C-alpha cells in the first residue's frame, strides 16, 4: 500500500498543534515581515501519527533482524541509553548556560573521554567532532597543525587502496596529495611498501591514514612496523577507528603507535544510527598531537569542571573549532551508559564475540562462497567476493536483493574496492548463534539456487519488499528533490 506524501494528505485549516494566542502587541520586525507564501500544509496529530507509523513500517531495522552491513557495526541499541539521554538534566540543557549549572554534563563528557582514552591507550581526546568523517577531519587537522607548529609544510598522505572513501576525501579537503598504498595479495599492507613510498616522498610525508582492522576485515599484522616507518619518515599515523569493535579491550591503538583515531560512537558504542545519523566522532590523540586538539576543552579542577571555549583561555595550541558548542552530548550520554553497562570485562567480551560471530559465519559459508583472503583469520567482519557466482548470471547486487526477499538486510556490497563484487558481512556481537544459523542457512540456500540456475529468484528480487527495484539512474539523471503541487487535480491523479 502506498502512503501519500504529507503534502498530499494535509490541508489548510488543520493543525497538529495548539498555540496560545498572544494578546495584542506591536511587532518589531523592522519591515522584515514574511511576504512570500508559506505553503506547508499541516496534519492533525492523529493523521500525523498514522502517517509516520505507516511509513516506518516500510523500513528494515536491527530490532527486526540481523543487519549485517560490513563496516557499519549495526549492533543492538539498548533502550536504557535512550531513557538516560532524555533525562531533563541532559536533554533540556542549553550549551551556553553558566558553567556552574552544568557541572554534571561536563563531568559526563570528561568521564566519557577518559574511558575512550583508556580503551585506546591514547593521551587525550577531542570530543566535539559530529561524526566519523568529521572526526577524521579533526585528526588530520591536528596533524596539519602539528606540522605547522614544526614549521613544515608536508603535503603527502598515504592511503591504502582498501581505505574508507572518507579517508582520501578528508585528505584532499585539507589540501594533501593522496598517494595510494596498494594492498598485498593477502589483503594487508606491507610495512616495506610503506617504507618505499615514504622514501620516494622523503620530507613531504605528512601522514598515513590506515584502517585497522582494515576493510577486508583483517588485522594488519605489520602495523607496528608500519607505524615505525611513518614515524621515521616524520609523518603521523592516523588510524580510522570505524572497525574498533573488533579490538575493543583486546588491543589498544596507542600501543600500536597510532597518533590519531576517530571513534564512531554510533558503531562500536551503539548509539542508534537513526536512518543515517546523528553520529558522533570523538577523536583520540597521542601525546604528540594532544596540544593541538580543537576547542572546546574540558578541564577538571579543584573547584569543579572548567569549560575552555577560547584559545585565549588555555595553554594548549588548539587548531580552532570543529563545530559550535561542545559536540554530540546526546550521543555521549548513550555511549557512556553503554560503556558503564558493559564495563571493562563486557567490552572485551564484545570484541571477542564480534570476532567469534564473523568467523562463525565464515566457517559456515566458506565452502560455498569465495574467500579472497583465506590466509588470515577474519576479525569482526568477513569478506567474500563474487567469484563463486562466476558461472551464474547472478551479480553481487542480485544476490543482495534476493536476501531481502528472505527477510534479511543485505551485507555491504562492492566495498572494499580491492576485490571484485565484494560482499562484506559484519554480524556484530548482538547476534545469537541461532540467528547466525538461520542467516547462514539462508545464504547457503541462495548460493545453491544461484548455482542451480534459478536466475529469476535473483534478477527479479526483491519481490516481497514495499518496493521492487528502484530506478536509481533515472533518479540521478533528472533529479526530483522535492514535492511540488500538481498543476491540476487531473495531473495529480495521472501521476499516481
Amino acid at each position, binding site marked *: 500500500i*502506498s502512503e501519500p*506524501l504529507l503534502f498530499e494528505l494535509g490541508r489548510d485549516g*488543520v493543525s*497538529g*498543534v495548539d*498555540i496560545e494566542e498572544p494578546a495584542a502587541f506591536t511587532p518589531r*520586525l*523592522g*519591515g*522584515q515581515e*514574511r511576504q512570500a507564501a508559506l505553503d*506547508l*500544509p499541516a496534519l492533525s496529530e492523529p493523521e*500525523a501519527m498514522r502517517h*509516520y507509523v505507516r*511509513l516506518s513500517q516500510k*523500513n528494515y531495522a*536491527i530490532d527486526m533482524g540481523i543487519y549485517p*552491513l560490513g563496516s557499519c557495526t549495526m549492533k543492538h541499541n539498548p533502550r*536504557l541509553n535512550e531513557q538516560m539521554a532524555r533525562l531533563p538534566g541532559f536533554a*533540556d*540543557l*542549553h550549551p551556553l548556560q*553558566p558553567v556552574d549549572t552544568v557541572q*554534571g554534563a561536563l563531568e559526563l563528557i570528561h568521564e566519557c573521554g577518559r574511558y575512550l582514552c583508556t*580503551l585506546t591507550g591514547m593521551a587525550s581526546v577531542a570530543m566535539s567532532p*559530529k561524526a566519523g*568523517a568529521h572526526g577524521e577531519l579533526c585528526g588530520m587537522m591536528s596533524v596539519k597543525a602539528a606540522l605547522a607548529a614544526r614549521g613544515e609544510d608536508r603535503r603527502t598522505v598515504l592511503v591504502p587502496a582498501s581505505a574508507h*572513501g572518507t579517508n*582520501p576525501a578528508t585528505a*584532499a579537503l*585539507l*589540501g594533501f596529495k593522496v598517494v595510494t598504498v596498494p594492498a598485498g595479495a593477502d589483503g594487508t599492507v606491507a610495512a616495506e611498501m610503506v617504507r618505499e613510498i615514504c622514501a620516494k616522498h622523503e620530507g613531504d610525508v605528512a601522514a598515513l591514514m590506515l584502517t585497522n582492522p582494515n576493510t577486508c576485515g583483517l588485522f594488519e599484522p605489520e602495523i*607496528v612496523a608500519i607505524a615505525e616507518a611513518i614515524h621515521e619518515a616524520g609523518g603521523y599515523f592516523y588510524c580510522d577507528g570505524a572497525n574498533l569493535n573488533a579490538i575493543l579491550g583486546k*588491543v*589498544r591503538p596507542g600501543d600500536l603507535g597510532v597518533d590519531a583515531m576517530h571513534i564512531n560512537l554510533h558503531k562500536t558504542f551503539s548509539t542508534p*544510527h537513526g*536512518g543515517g*545519523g*546523528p*553520529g558522533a566522532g570523538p577523536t583520540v590523540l597521542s601525546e604528540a598531537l594532544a596540544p593541538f586538539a580543537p576547542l572546546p576543552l574540558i578541564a577538571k579542577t579543584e573547584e569543579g569542571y572548567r569549560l575552555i571555549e*577560547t584559545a585565549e583561555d588555555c595553554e594548549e595550541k588548539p587548531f580552532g573549532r*570543529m*563545530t*559550535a558548542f561542545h559536540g554530540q552530548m546526546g550521543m555521549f*550520554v548513550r555511549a557512556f551508559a553503554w560503556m558503564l553497562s558493559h*564495563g*571493562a*570485562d*563486557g567490552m572485551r567480551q564484545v570484541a571477542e564475540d564480534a570476532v567469534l560471530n564473523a*568467523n*562463525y559465519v565464515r566457517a559456515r559459508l566458506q565452502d560455498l562462497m569465495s574467500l579472497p583472503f583465506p590466509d588470515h583469520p577474519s576479525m569482526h567482519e568477513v569478506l567474500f567476493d563474487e567469484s563463486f557466482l562466476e558461472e551464474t548470471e547472478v551479480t553481487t547486487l542480485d544476490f543482495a536483493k534476493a536476501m*531481502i526477499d528472505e527477510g534479511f*538486510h543485505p551485507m555491504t556490497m562492492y566495498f572494499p574496492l580491492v576485490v571484485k563484487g565484494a560482499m562484506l558481512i559484519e554480524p556484530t556481537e*548482538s547476534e*545469537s548463534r541461532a540467528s547466525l544459523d538461520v542467516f547462514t542457512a539462508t545464504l547457503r540456500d541462495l548460493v545453491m539456487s544461484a548455482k542451480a540456475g534459478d536466475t529469476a529468484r535473483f534478477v527479479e528480487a526483491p519481490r516481497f*519488499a*514495499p518496493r521492487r527495484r528502484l530506478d536509481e539512474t533515472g533518479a*540521478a539523471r533528472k533529479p526530483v*528533490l522535492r514535492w511540488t503541487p500538481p498543476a491540476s487535480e487531473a495531473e495529480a491523479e495521472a501521476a499516481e
Partner: protein
Amino acid sequence: MRYLPHTDQDRADMLRVIGVETIDELFRDVPADKLLKEAVDLPRHKSELEVARLMRRLAAKNRAAGDGPFFLGAGAYHHHVPASVDHIIQRSEYLTSYTPYQPEISQGTLQTLFEFQTQVAELTGTEVANASMYDGSTATAEAVLMACRVTKRSKAVLSGGLHPQYREVVETLANMEDDECISLPPDPKGNEDLLAEISEDVACVVVQSPSFYGQLIDLKPIAARCRETGVLLVAVFTEVVSLGLIEPPGAQGADIVVGEGQSIGNALSFGGPYVGLFATKQKYIRQMPGRLCGETRDREGKRGYVLTLNTREQHIRRDKATSNICTNSGLCALAFTAHMTLLGGDGLRKLALRNHERACRLADALGAISGVEVVNESFFNEFTIRVPGDAAALVEKLAEAGIVAGLPVSRLEPDCGLDDLIVVAATETATDDDIAAYASAIEAAL
C-alpha cells in the same frame, strides 16, 4: 551480560565449528606483546539499575532549562516539542535502521527525507534542500566551501553579526584549506558596511539574520550587490522558527541558505545532536554537499525514493568528493519533519508570532529598568541588552537566583569591549511570571 546472547557453551561450540581452540587464535595477527592479557583498567560491568542511578546522579547536577525562568538562546533555543514527535523517532524502524542504502526496504526513511527536503526548501524560500547536515555551524562552513567551488574563488567575507562560534568553524576550515577569510568585527546593531567588502575577488559573503545579537538584517541590498559582482550570498539563521514570520532568505535573493534546525523537533541536549539545514538553487545541486533524496519509480512503475547524485560523495569519488561528509542527521531531520508536519505553515506562523510577542514583552519589561538598554530596534525572539558593568558577573548572580538570564557576549567574544552586553531570548516557553521574575531579579541585582 544482558546485551550478549552467547552462553559460554555457545562460544565453545562455535569455536569448534570454526576449528580453533581459543578465541585468541582468531587474534593471532595481533602482535603478541600488544594483545592485552586482561581487561583494561576500568570498572566491571554494571546492572541497569546501577547505571541508571549513576546517570541520574550526574543529570541532577545540572539545572535543566525547564527548572525555572530561562532566557538563553544564542544559537540554541528552548522550545516545546510535541510528545508525538519523540514517540515517532523512537520507533524501532526509524531508530535502529541504517542509512537507506537498500531503498526497497528503506522507503520509510527515504520518504521522510523527501518530505524534509521539501519543507526546508519551502521554509527558506529556495528551490532545493539536502537531507540535512550535522548542524548550523558546519552547514555554514560547507556553504563557504561550496561557494568557493561554484565561483572558483577562495575568499569569504563574514558579517560581524554571524554567531562567533560559526565564524570560528568557518575560519578554522578556511585556515586549514589555505582560503582567505575576512571577518568583520562584532556588530550588535547590524549597522556594519558589508557592501564595501563585496568585490569581484570574493567567493561569498556570509550574513546571519536574525543576527547573533538578534538584529534583523535586510538581505536584499546585499543580494543585489552580490549579483553585480558574481559573489554568492550565504544567508545563515540559527533560529528556524523566525522563518514563520520573517521574509525567507531565498526570497530576498540568497544563493545558499543554511541554518540550525534544532528549534523544530529537537531538544537542547547541551549542544547536540542538532540538524543543519542546507538549501540552494536548483542549478547548484551537483555542487551541494551532503545526502540528497530523490523521487523515482520502481520496476512496476510505483513511486519511490532513493538517495541520489551519490557520485558527488566520497564513497564513490573518494578524493574528488564535494565534501567528506558521510553521516547526516537523519533522526533529527525526522524529528524536524514530524514537528513541522504538525505545525504546517499556519502553525509555524502562530508559533513565531507567539515567540515574537514574548520577546517584545521581555524587551519592554527589561527596557523599563533604569540602567538597562535594549540594543536592537528590530528583532525576532532574541535581542541584546546593555547593562551597567560586567555582564558576565551579572548573569552569574542571576543564575544563583535561579534565573538563566542570557549569554554574556564576552563569553564568546572576549577582549572586544562588549563586556556589558547580554544576548537574551524569549520563546513560547516563557510565561508572564518568568518575565516578571527576570525583570525584578535584574532590578534587584543592579
